[in-house]
């Protein structure tokens, strides 16, 4: 069957199998920033924004999202300029092996889009569906706070 999706601002047509997941579709069509981890909704590595909200793409049937809008980690930068969250993840050392990073960035983007001044608890809840085997999670929370400070015009001392 055929579906149409807007991926990272570009409207595209895809031929899919009726039982294909969005994760499989995105990876085979070149969006390799969408990581395949557990394929069971547990790790968050496959997160994408679906109509602006972060979801596990391994749990989404591609056929179900015909006509909808998807943003992958590849779509977060603006014409080569990293988004504030991406800069902050680099600057705080929130990236080690990097496997969890795309999913973390997507989850954090959803959080900041709907809650511009989250508390530390709210940041932790926002990232609670994203597993990281390397960092111990402290740095990602710091990175979100740093991005917030910069986005709200403060300095990052």
């Amino acid at each position, binding site marked *: *069957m055929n579906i149409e999706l807007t991926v990272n601002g570009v409207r595209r047509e895809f031929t899919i*199998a*009726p*039982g*294909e*997941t969005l994760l*499989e579709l995105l990876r085979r069509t070149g969006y390799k920033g969408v990581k395949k981890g557990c*394929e*069971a*909704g547990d790790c*968050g590595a496959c*997160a994408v924004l*679906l109509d602006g*909200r*972060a*979801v*596990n793409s*391994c*749990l*989404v*049937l591609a*056929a*179900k999202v015909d006509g909808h809008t998807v943003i992958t980690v590849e779509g977060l930068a603006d014409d080569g300029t990293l988004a504030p969250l991406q800069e902050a993840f680099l600057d705080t050392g929130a990236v080690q092996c990097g496997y969890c990073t795309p999913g973390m960035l997507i*989850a954090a983007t*959803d*959080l900041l889009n*709907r809650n511009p001044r989250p508390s530390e608890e709210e940041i*932790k*809840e*926002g990232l*609670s*569906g*994203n597993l990281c085997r390397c960092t111990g999670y402290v740095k990602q929370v710091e990175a979100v706070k740093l991005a917030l400070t910069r986005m709200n015009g403060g300095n990052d001392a």
Partner: protein
Amino acid sequence: MSLPKVSEFVRPTDLAAALHELESVNARIVAGGIDVVLFPGDTTKLVDISGIPLSGINSDAEGIVIGATTTMTALIESPLIADYLGGVVTTMLHHLASPLQRNLATIGGTLISAHPWSDVIPLFLVLGARVSYYDGTEHTVPIAQFYAESMFRQRIILTAVRLPAFPPGTAAAFIKFSRTAFDIAVLNCAALVQITAGRCTAARIAVGGAPQRGYLLPHAGEVLTKSGALTAEIIASAARTARDEADISDDMRASAAYRRNLVEVGVQRALGQIKDKLEAGV
């Protein structure tokens, strides 16, 4: 993993058409789709109900009506739900999975999949929610009856769940014990108490993840209604009764002995919260 057995995907736009699509062998409804993807079984045909107008949160004289395809996120962000009974449903939802799953999972999919770990079921049992479903005609039944009778019938479409309005003097609480903030419950527990003229006139207590699907503990509730006032001693007595009454077993997350302790602690905490809320007048 994609679902290799699936060969057909249809999008009916009304209930009658959806029911007709479900007549095929191995046809299955897709709402959020989480369970359909994780546990596909022999499903060969998917019936997507997101094109049927079943989503939304509204209030009427009897309470709140939640459409079946409403997501957990829509509920958590709803002011109507936040204002309902001191925000107890919102509190429960913050304990349910993470935003990544809450953005997908629907209330209808959750009630039909009826997982042992469901955080929704124990709370909706104590609230006395009512479930509306369609099998050619519309029916509305209490949630306990739905699980006892209707749910295992073939070809029903859950259309809405209704949360009743309560008089002042009613409070409810939800407690979840889990190994990490994101894990499913080792045990969860919910309680509701209604006080009229200083006396406890209604009380319901439920546990879930024990490890089977949530259920009411009528004897523990009776301790409260028979004793009248909600004192610390009566709370402790109800919690001990719940401990004895609960049907508990082992699984990989916890031993039965540990779970039994949690039942007592959980019920005690839930009733303690309710007492505080009632005294504070919320």
